[in-house]
């Protein structure tokens, strides 16, 4: 292999002997580097522009110290060797459509060191053959990274991709390090061909969009972080250990239709956090499947957006926890969730004193023991009818507070805490019972307590005490259990029919006043 150094001080074409030398800074006139040669650009190559007027095939390309410009135009540099085949430089500039293709088909390892170049100066790499390792080193950055016909392994330190990533179905990706996607414009694609990418994944490009074109799978110990930009799951399945997007940057998580995120981490981990949901948007199905097999004694924390940090119905996700025997912690601060569902083989518990703000449904039939506490669970739907179905008692206070919202309570539900209806409609399934520690209403908006089917009764039960409600329209509800149930008309309550166990008369205050007036009217006059 012969070395050929770029020595022109100004602009010149690749395919010209006037620009090449056999020594760094040496005399020009050497042959243009060919398929048996190494091309080198260095500090003695000047700051001019080297223009590719052909698509050369060389063994290796080294640019260390080069301060000029490599203009690819629409040409491609083919590197046919093994070992370290490319070394870039942060001091150089690239122009055109920069593409380097690695063509060696042997099992011998290859290394590229792209260095930490900017997005503008990044170069695309295509690996078209080979069965050995391809290593990227130096924490560098590339534009597109494309593997086709490559059946080796991508081994790398952490590095950055500004463009598209395409993997060959026959290759592997070594488990290690972080892969950062950092495009700042356009839509970049990630095509894994079902190859597992067992790395931490970071999406961090202001204005960037990344769309997966099939499933994307990383490992149970890996964290995916959405820092800036839009991650479009495009309706496909995305598996990762942990998902984190807690910051104030503009970012979007677009699920598309039919896919979802699988969170596979176990152990003591915050497996999802959008605690700071400022500028966080969500689109599509928003389904998150929690499938890590947590063990007894461990806690997985799911941190929805805190209401005080812009957690809203619009960026709340659905969580289906279907495996593990550990504790699921939804946090004690008011954090938003859409649906919460326990299913599958989950046999653990919900952490103590959590205070979820639930915009969708809650389903937990025989799966999670609810530890309970003094913090209230709040159901906050403001539009559609959602349901609550839990054969496991909720051992917390519960608040229903969604103007225009409705909640259907399936099956018998035990709430070992105060139930407060502030806004919306509670519908108790026909013939079933909502068992409470106390029941009250709040505010002057009209609220509704009823069975699901008009004309068919259901029950609300409290063992003792006095439950007085206001601004409540009651239909088909039998109040029972031993407590006193007051729904005085003068408190804005409406008897919509088919109720029993309620006292709908005037409140004692009004009653006493009427009695006094009657006595005054009937007293004999004294003359």
């Amino acid at each position, binding site marked *: 292999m012969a070395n050929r150094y770029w020595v022109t001080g100004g602009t010149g074409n690749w395919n010209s002997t006037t620009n090449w030398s056999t020594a760094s800074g040496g005399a020009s006139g050497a042959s243009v580097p060919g398929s048996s040669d190494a091309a080198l650009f260095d500090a003695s190559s000047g700051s001019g522009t080297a223009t590719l007027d052909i698509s050369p095939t060389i063994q290796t390309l080294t640019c260390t110290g080069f301060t000029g410009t490599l203009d690819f135009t629409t040409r491609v540099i083919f590197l046919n060797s093994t070992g370290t085949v490319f070394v870039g430089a942060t001091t150089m500039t690239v122009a055109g459509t920069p593409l380097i293709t690695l063509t060696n088909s042997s099992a011998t390892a290859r290394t590229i060191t792209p260095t930490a170049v900017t997005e503008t100066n990044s170069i695309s790499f295509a690996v078209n053959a080979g069965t050995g390792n391809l290593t990227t080193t130096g924490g560098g950055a590339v534009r597109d990274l494309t593997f086709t016909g490559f059946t080796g392994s991508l*081994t790398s330190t952490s590095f950055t991709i500004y463009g598209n990533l395409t993997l060959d179905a026959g290759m592997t990706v070594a488990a290690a390090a972080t892969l950062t996607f950092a495009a700042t414009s356009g839509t970049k694609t990630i095509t894994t061909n079902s190859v597992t990418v067992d790395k931490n994944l970071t999406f961090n490009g202001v204005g960037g969009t990344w769309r997966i074109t099939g499933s994307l799978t990383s*490992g149970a110990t890996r964290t995916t972080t959405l820092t800036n930009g839009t991650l479009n799951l495009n309706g496909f399945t995305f598996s990762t250990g942990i998902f984190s997007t807690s910051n104030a940057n503009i970012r979007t998580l677009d699920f598309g239709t039919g896919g979802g995120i699988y969170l596979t981490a176990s152990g003591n981990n915050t497996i999802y956090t959008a605690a700071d949901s400022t500028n966080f948007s969500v689109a599509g199905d928003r389904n998150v499947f929690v499938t890590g097999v947590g063990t007894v004694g461990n806690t997985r924390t799911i941190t929805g957006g805190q209401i005080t940090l812009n957690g809203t119905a619009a960026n709340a996700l659905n969580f289906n926890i279907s495996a593990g025997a550990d504790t699921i912690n939804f946090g004690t601060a008011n954090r938003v969730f859409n649906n919460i569902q326990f299913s599958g083989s989950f046999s653990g518990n919900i952490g103590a004193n959590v205070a979820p703000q639930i915009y969708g449904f809650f389903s937990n039939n025989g799966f999670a023991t609810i530890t309970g506490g003094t913090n209230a669970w709040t159901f906050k739907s403001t539009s559609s009818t959602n349901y609550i179905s839990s054969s496991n008692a909720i051992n917390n206070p519960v608040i229903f507070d969604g103007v225009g919202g409705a909640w259907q309570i399936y099956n018998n539900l035990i709430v070992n805490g105060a139930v407060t209806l502030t806004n919306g409609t509670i519908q108790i399934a026909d013939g079933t019972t909502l068992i409470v520690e106390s029941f009250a209403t709040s505010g002057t908006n009209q609220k509704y307590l009823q069975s699901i089917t008009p004309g068919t009764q259901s029950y609300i039960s409290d063992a003792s005490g006095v439950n007085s409600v206001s601004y409540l329209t009651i239909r088909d509800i039998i109040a029972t259990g031993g407590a006193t149930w007051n729904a005085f008309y003068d408190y804005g309550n409406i008897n919509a029919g088919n109720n029993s166990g309620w006292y709908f008369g005037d409140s004692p205050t009004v009653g006493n006043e009427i009695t006094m007036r009657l006595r005054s009217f009937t007293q004999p006059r004294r003359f």
Partner: protein
Amino acid sequence: MIEVKFTLSQPDDSYKFSDTLLLADDHGLTDAEIEAMKQARYDKWYDYITNPPPVVDEPIVE
């Protein structure tokens, strides 16, 4: 290139997996072979997330 999008799941509809096969225009595969490829993809994914392999970060040679 032909994109074959598919979704497979467990019989109880859990562990739903949505992916796509990318096939050459002249792939020459039978429907049965394509279905087998889908199932292989699903089985690989299901096994990976339900029985995660031990974590061994591979050393990187600088």
